[in-house]
């Protein structure tokens, strides 16, 4: 499986993202929204075995399972049309400017233009033809989470 993934990475010509201690190491990262983030973190740990890796204030957390992470984020209801849970997908890319030009040329609806963030990423957000939300992110610095207020969670104790 690992060799098949490596071969595919070569075919897509997309290098692995450089390290940023503030980001999950995986390239494609689901972002799941919950009205009660702390309850969701506890539930995902108890039910599915996710470990909290990083806490961002009271509105985001990175949760790891094996070598990959997801993001759980706070989103207060009410949502439109009675939706009470939703998601986005984050993708780490090597060259955000090139990716942005490609997406706009193909007709992606841009929700936010490329912006630099203090946690070492340059990101833009777009909506695809099916109404799904994507955030594309290029690492521009390797940032220690404490530098922007993030809290790494001790795996043994579960505390910051």
């Amino acid at each position, binding site marked *: 499986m690992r060799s098949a993934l490596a071969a595919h990475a070569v075919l897509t010509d997309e290098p692995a993202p450089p390290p940023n201690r503030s980001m999950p190491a995986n390239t494609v990262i689901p972002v799941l929204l919950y009205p009660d983030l702390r309850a969701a973190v506890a539930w995902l740990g108890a039910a599915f075995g996710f470990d909290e890796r990083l806490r961002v204030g009271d509105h985001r957390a990175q949760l790891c399972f094996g070598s990959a992470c997801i993001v759980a984020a*706070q*989103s207060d209801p009410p949502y*439109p049309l009675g939706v009470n849970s939703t998601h*986005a997908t984050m993708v780490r890319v090597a060259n955000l400017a090139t990716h942005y030009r490609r997406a706009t040329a193909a007709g992606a609806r841009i929700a936010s233009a490329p912006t630099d963030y203090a*946690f070492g990423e340059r990101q833009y957000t777009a*909506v695809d033809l099916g109404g*799904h*939300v994507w955030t594309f992110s290029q690492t521009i610095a390797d940032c220690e989470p404490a530098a922007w207020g*993030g809290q790494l969670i001790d795996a043994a104790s579960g505390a910051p």
Partner: protein
Amino acid sequence: MPRLAEHFAEIDTDSNGQLSTAEIVAYIQQRRGSR
């Protein structure tokens, strides 16, 4: 999360006068960045 009405024009990226779930999710993603 700020009240949506205060940022309606910013969130309504297709300017159709309605906020879709996708537009709200996108706003949440970009407001403070995603990590």
